[in-house]
């Protein structure tokens, strides 16, 4: 064996913990990779097991093609058929609303729903509804819904129960298939579930069912498949969605792995620098440069092997422990397997990362001059400048990044630009960002000092401990840069997601301002008007506020467009309309003789600010001056907003077309109360339907929150590795600086002072990284947002960003706490030692 390697290995054997510390980032990365593989397995197994929509008891499914109630009866008569359930679903009109009525047995092995209140319908004309339907449509148990099932005739259906459905859209009713079929004209069903007698072979039953349809035309003949196949297909479908999700996860894991590589390179550099004297000694007594390099590279590979194996082992342990824990709290989660190939692959990946990471540090360590052995100073990372090659390696990608960003900037789409291809532009933004990062890695050491000069200012004022911390970080700019760059990577991603999220939310708010200006809207059916007393009752209710009735004409002709809606809704009465996307002019200018035009209409009719718009309605013509053009839609999907006098001039009658209102207070229960009040105002008449516009807002909020949560969670992996890197770096630099710690203690620094100093140092790594990250992340988020072509405003969520900044700095500070405590225990006698 190479004698240098033997020396190295002897060192490793003496201090195995330090090897793990060197490779801690790689360890975490291989844990993350392997845990992701296991998580995918767990999810897949659990979902395939549990989340198929077709009940377990279904042996055969007859679907597609043309099936009616006579087929159903014939199948029921086949020997061996234990029970059937007809899958049938119709849409019915309820006042101005839509009600979905599905057939379901309500109980037994084929049922998809179960009763939670009242009973399941048994007689014709009875239905059960879902909980949200009770809320939204006011269909309580005991009430009667007068519906038109598409036949043109109204049928009264009595609500006898509430059921728990697989999914609740808030307009769902269930009844036995016979009831549903009775409502239709043609008695067709969409499919039939068949449960075969226990112990009976489904094959012959299937043949007999197929024989029933033998005479049907090809396109009418339904297919008969086994329940197992259907369940499998459904599970596969769910699983492929999981695969897609995990593909995205994999991308983030990839970024985290790259971050781990950066950290590992930095820790190798520190470790080798600590051994500079020893290496120099070996060189002095005749070790060759390439042999030294080989020994160091081998050590890197071994580190990768060890940390990769530990990471995989820990991952496998967690893979069994976490499902067990989840089962403990009642979740139905299965264990993962032991995917040996993946385990080996992960360990190999760890080896590869480590070898790549160790190359550059090993090259420079092998270049150590034998003379170094005779020098006394053993500091590392003390060099602050960078050489010419490194400048070039930094400035080239920087120039390329700027050029790409500039290209994207000059080619940003205008408003509503057509034929715009966002994909290319987004790719350019991502490439520019990656190049900027490459530049940051190379130029980091020269950036640390300026950033430190600004951010370290308050610390320096804090006294000698703060000054020493700033000095310590600035004094080893290379090390600080190596760690901070990884923190910056995490912060850039976090900032990008936060800015993107806030901007999408702002865009959503803008669009929802027109679509959902209030929590509720009440309308009569077509053409009917709301009686005045409904408005009066609503205004009197303490649960409602901003009750705003409006009139709406739907028959106006504007320019060549007939049937354009015009409304006199008081825009100023509703605060949410402040968010309206106003492209030009001002909504506040609206007064008699003027109009606000929806963006789509302005575009189609070629209307601009200051133009005159002619409105024709029932033989009358009104000319109005355009005082504002909106982004796209106007509130209530109108084309034109005018004042009441002008609407009257167009021939609108005195009755209200509808009414908007907000819940008086925030919160779910207040909204439910308000909804009840709206219904009460309608006096129990179901033809005045209430729409909960707030649901659209909630849906958007929930969706955004989920997306943001997932994105941040995934970025958390990179952040975790960055924090681990800060911890490992601080720990290693503490080892390297025992002398310095001892000296500070010897000349009178207290233990607490030393602890504070080292903790501040690691916090400063976080500060530098976070500052660099924000400086990169926010502009790139903005550029990416503009490049998507979505006309989203740039929203900078200052508090969220400040919060993310703070959390990161606290995390990196915490990463330094343990090493700092160790250092503080160093006896001052260490300062007097001679080596």
């Amino acid at each position, binding site marked *: 064996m190479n004698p240098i390697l033997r020396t190295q290995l002897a060192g490793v054997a003496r201090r195995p913990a330090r090897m793990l510390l060197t490779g801690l980032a790689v360890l975490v990365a291989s844990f993350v990779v392997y845990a992701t593989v296991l998580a995918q397995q767990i999810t897949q197994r659990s979902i395939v097991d549990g989340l198929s929509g077709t009940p377990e008891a279904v042996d055969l499914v007859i679907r597609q093609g043309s099936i009616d109630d006579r087929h159903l009866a014939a199948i029921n008569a086949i020997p061996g058929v234990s029970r059937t359930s007809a899958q049938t679903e119709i849409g019915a009109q309820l006042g101005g609303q839509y009600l979905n009525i599905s057939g379901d047995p309500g109980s037994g092995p084929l049922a998809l729903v179960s009763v939670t209140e009242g009973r399941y319908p048994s007689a014709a004309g009875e239905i059960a509804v879902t909980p949200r339907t009770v809320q939204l449509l006011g269909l309580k148990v005991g009430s009667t819904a007068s519906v038109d099932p598409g036949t043109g005739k109204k049928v009264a259906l009595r609500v006898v129960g509430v059921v728990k459905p697989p999914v609740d859209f808030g307009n769902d009713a269930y009844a036995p298939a016979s009831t549903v079929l009775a409502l239709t004209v043609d008695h067709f069903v969409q499919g039939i579930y068949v449960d075969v007698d226990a112990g009976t072979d489904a094959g012959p039953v299937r043949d007999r069912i197929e024989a029933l349809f033998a005479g049907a035309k090809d396109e009418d003949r339904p297919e008969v498949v086994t329940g197992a196949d259907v369940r499998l297909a459904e599970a596969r479908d769910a699983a492929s969605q999981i695969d897609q999700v995990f593909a995205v996860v994999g991308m983030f894991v990839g970024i985290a792995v790259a971050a781990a590589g950066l950290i590992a390179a930095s820790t190798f550099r520190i470790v080798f620098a600590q051994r500079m004297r020893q290496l120099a000694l070996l060189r002095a007594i005749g070790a060759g440069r390439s042999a030294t390099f080989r020994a160091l590279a081998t050590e890197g590979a071994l580190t990768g092997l060890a940390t990769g194996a530990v990471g995989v082992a820990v991952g496998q342990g967690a893979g069994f422990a976490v499902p067990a824990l989840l089962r403990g709290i009642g979740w139905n989660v299965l264990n993962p397997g032991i995917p040996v190939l993946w385990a080996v692959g992960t360990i190999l990946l760890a080896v590869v990362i480590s070898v790549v990471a160790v190359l550059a540090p090993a090259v420079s360590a092998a270049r150590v001059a034998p003379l170094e052995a005779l020098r*006394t*100073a053993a*500091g590392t990372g*003390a060099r602050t400048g960078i050489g010419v090659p490194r400048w070039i390696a930094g400035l080239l990608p920087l120039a390329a990044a700027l050029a790409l960003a500039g290209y994207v900037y000059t080619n940003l789409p205008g408003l509503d630009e057509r034929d715009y291809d966002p994909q290319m532009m987004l790719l350019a933004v991502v490439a520019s960002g990656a190049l900027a990062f490459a530049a940051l890695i190379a130029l980091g050491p020269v950036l640390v000092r300026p950033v430190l000069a600004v951010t370290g200012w308050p610390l320096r004022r804090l*006294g*000698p*401990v703060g*000054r*020493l911390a700033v*000095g*310590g970080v*600035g*004094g*080893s700019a290379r090390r600080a840069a190596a760690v901070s760059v990884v923190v910056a990577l995490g912060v850039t991603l976090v900032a990008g997601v936060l800015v993107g999220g806030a901007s999408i939310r702002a865009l959503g708010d803008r669009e929802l301002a027109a679509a959902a200006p209030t929590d509720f809207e009440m309308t009569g059916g077509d053409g009917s008007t709301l009686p005045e007393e409904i408005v009066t009752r609503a205004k009197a209710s303490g649960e409602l506020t901003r009750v705003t009735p409006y009139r709406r004409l739907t028959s106006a002709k504007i320019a060549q467009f007939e049937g354009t809606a015009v409304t006199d809704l008081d825009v100023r009465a509703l605060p949410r309309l402040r968010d309206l996307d106003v492209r030009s002019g001002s909504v506040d200018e609206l007064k008699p003789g003027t109009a606000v035009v929806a963006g789509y209409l302005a575009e189609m009719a070629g209307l601009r600010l200051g133009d005159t718009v002619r409105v024709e309605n029932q033989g009358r013509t009104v000319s109005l001056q355009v005082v504002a053009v909106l982004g796209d839609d106007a509130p209530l999907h109108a084309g034109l907003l005018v004042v009441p006098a002008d609407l009257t001039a167009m021939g609108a009658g005195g009755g209200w077309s509808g009414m908007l209102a907000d819940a008086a207070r925030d919160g779910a229960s207040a909204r439910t109360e308000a909804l009840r009040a709206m219904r009460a105002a309608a006096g129990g008449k179901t033809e005045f339907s209430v729409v909960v516009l707030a649901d659209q807002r909630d849906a958007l909020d929930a969706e955004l929150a989920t997306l943001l949560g997932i994105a941040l969670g995934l970025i958390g992996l990179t952040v975790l590795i960055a924090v681990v890197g800060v911890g490992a770096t601080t720990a290693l630099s503490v080892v390297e600086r025992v*002398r*310095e710690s001892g*000296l*500070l*203690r*010897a*000349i*009178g*620094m*207290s*233990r607490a*002072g030393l602890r504070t100093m080292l903790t501040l140092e690691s916090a400063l790594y976080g500060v530098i990284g976070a500052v660099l990250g924000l400086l990169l992340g926010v502009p790139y988020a903005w550029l990416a947002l503009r490049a998507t072509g979505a006309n989203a405003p740039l929203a900078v969520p200052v508090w969220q960003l400040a919060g993310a900044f703070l959390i990161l700095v606290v995390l990196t500070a915490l990463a330094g706490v343990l090493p700092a405590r160790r250092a503080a225990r160093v*006896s*001052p*006698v260490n*300062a*007097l030692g*001679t080596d």
Partner: protein
Amino acid sequence: MQTQSSPPVGHDALAAVAAVDLVKVYGAGDTAVRALDGVTVGFERARFTAIMGPSGSGKSTLMHCLAGLDTATSGQVLLGGADLTKQSDKVLTKVRRERIGFVFQSFNLLPQLTALRNITLPLDLAGRRPDAELLDRLVTTLGLAGRLGHLPSELSGGQQQRVALARALVSRPEVLFADEPTGNLDSRSGAEVLGLLRDSARNLGQTIVMVTHDPGAAAYADRVVLLADGRLAGEIYQPDITSVTDALQKLAAGR
């Protein structure tokens, strides 16, 4: 004149720092080493004292205990009459910061701080401003005037050690401890530093305790204290190279 707690020897009330029956044991059981085996010795105020002895005789250990860097197993360390051995780390830290100065063999300057900042570091830590006049005089005497803005890596060994000396003196410590301060210096720089130490004792009234194994260095001192096997083995007043070398040879022969 003597109170009961004072050391029972002739160097008495003048002692700036003293050890009384000091014992220090490293390790336990079979491997236990008695590095100090009942040492009683005082170091006079405004005097330059050297501690000498064969390698492993306990010189460094004695100095560590006297300076409050290490805790003794038993016995007392009296600094200005007060016992240090029973004090908490907090008190010892304060003592080191305010009453004691150090010069190390390996300079031990912070690489990221300039010479000036290194000099004023103990005062910074104590939150005190340097006495401008003293600082000025030290810088001039130590010949550091043109070097204050330099980093340690830009200074020669002798210059670094003079910076360390300035650092030790700038807080006007009651006692200045030096552990082989010339061990890493060439003879000319070493002589310079030793001359400066002697001058601070003579001219500034600085109490100095220095550990060395070099008779040439010890000859700069006012008095030499000899240690052997963790015990006091004699002392020499107004030493010169010959007397010190003789004494050391006798010690080595007696073993």
